[in-house]
């Protein structure tokens, strides 16, 4: 079984490469479907395979950058990426993350960093999950009552109130179909950036719901635009972690092969999923992430890892199911139409 292990020249360890391929594939599927990097899933997985934590984080970031390119490429062809909105949001995200990092440094100086960050993380995730599920409940009630707009029934429409703020310059984001003050996406990305910097995460987990609920992006475009941002920050992350010698590029290559296939499946699956299907699965992923953090806080490390990897596996199977079912239906319909035409 020696051939199943690959020597990592920088870390100086042998790694089970099919495991890398599998992690890459799963995160590719999930990231392409939800529009996030998925560092919270990859880092524990790499750690289990035997990577020291320092290498796990750097390798994870490089893999996320490559994987997001594949997903953005595919989403872009579907018309799911609003580049103008993405670039506008980069400004707020960057400044916000820097501010979040400063708050972390201040907390570090007063010696209260660990528990504060973890519990704020749990609180934010709980809020996101609550928002997603109550939004679904409200949308279902609206649908039953027959209140439906051009894209179907929608629950929370906070963005409509926010769009009434007319502080110049006003911008038209054509792909997302939004006309609002430029300060709205900048401010929203700043807030999500502060939280991301404070919590020490990439931010896709926060940005995706913010794009939907506060800016008013249709879910599919929120996913594509978020991936575009993840791609930009991932490439810079690759550079900085590379300079610090924290990247095992051999592992990145193997993971990317799995991720490239996974990202295609995850991205194409969004074609067959309704916006609320994506949101609900996203809410469940957030709940799994929250549960694992709570377990970690109480030192149940093994249970936390099992929860994360179990959730990753289940969500991955669910998304693959959507993709293959949708694709086979489409091909069947196409075949029937061809037969009819002949």
């Amino acid at each position, binding site marked *: 079984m020696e051939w199943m292990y690959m020597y990592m020249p920088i870390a100086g360890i042998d790694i089970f490469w099919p495991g890398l391929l599998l992690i890459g594939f799963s995160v590719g599927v999930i990231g392409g479907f939800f529009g996030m990097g998925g560092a919270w899933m990859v880092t524990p997985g790499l750690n289990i395979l035997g990577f020291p934590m320092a290498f796990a984080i750097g390798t994870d970031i490089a893999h996320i*950058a490559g994987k997001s390119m594949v997903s953005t490429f595919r989403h872009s062809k579907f018309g799911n990426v609003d580049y103008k909105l993405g670039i506008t949001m980069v400004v707020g995200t960057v400044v916000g993350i820097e501010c979040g990092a400063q708050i972390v440094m201040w907390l570090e100086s007063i010696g209260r960093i660990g528990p504060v960050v973890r519990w704020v993380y749990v609180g934010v995730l709980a809020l996101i999950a609550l928002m997603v599920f109550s939004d679904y409940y409200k949308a279902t009630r609206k649908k039953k009552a027959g209140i439906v707009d051009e894209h179907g029934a929608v629950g929370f429409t906070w963005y409509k109130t926010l769009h009434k703020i007319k502080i110049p310059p006003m911008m038209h984001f054509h792909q997302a179909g939004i006309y609002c003050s430029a300060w709205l996406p900048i401010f929203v990305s700043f807030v999500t950036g502060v939280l991301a910097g404070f919590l020490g*995460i990439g931010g896709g987990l926060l940005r995706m719901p913010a794009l939907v609920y506060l800016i008013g992006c249709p879910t599919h475009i929120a996913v594509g635009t978020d991936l575009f941002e993840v791609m930009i920050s991932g490439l810079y992350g690759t550079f900085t972690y*590379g300079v610090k010698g924290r990247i095992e590029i051999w592992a990145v290559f193997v993971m990317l092969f799995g991720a490239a296939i996974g990202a295609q499946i995850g991205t194409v699956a969004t074609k067959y999923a309704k916006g609320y299907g994506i949101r609900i699965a996203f809410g469940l992923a957030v709940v799994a992430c929250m549960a694992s953090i709570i377990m970690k806080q109480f030192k149940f490390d093994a249970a936390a890892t099992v929860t994360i990897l179990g959730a990753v596996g289940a969500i991955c199977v669910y998304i693959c199911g959507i993709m293959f079912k949708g694709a086979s239906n489409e091909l069947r319909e196409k075949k029937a139409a061809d037969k009819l035409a002949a």
Partner: protein
Amino acid sequence: MIRFRYLLMLLCGGACLLLPDVVMAAGGKATALIVVSDPRATDSNIAKWWIDYYNTDPFMFGVWCTILTGFLGVSLGFITDRLMRHTGLDLTKRTIVEH
């Protein structure tokens, strides 16, 4: 509007300068590694060359990591896109239905 676009581009450029710090904030502060990798542990010439880069020039190591990741991401995106076209699925259109 045009002035705003210039201002936005300027801000983006300036913001990029902050990105290294940003990414560090996102993944935990990384201090310079003092670990030196051992090229004698492998027989592969490519691995030896890569280890030498890592040991002698961290900046270029970072640059190569970024270039290789970007190159592989774009190449795999292109190849898998070609493969997906052979499935016969319509990969250019989708309808947005929220519920």
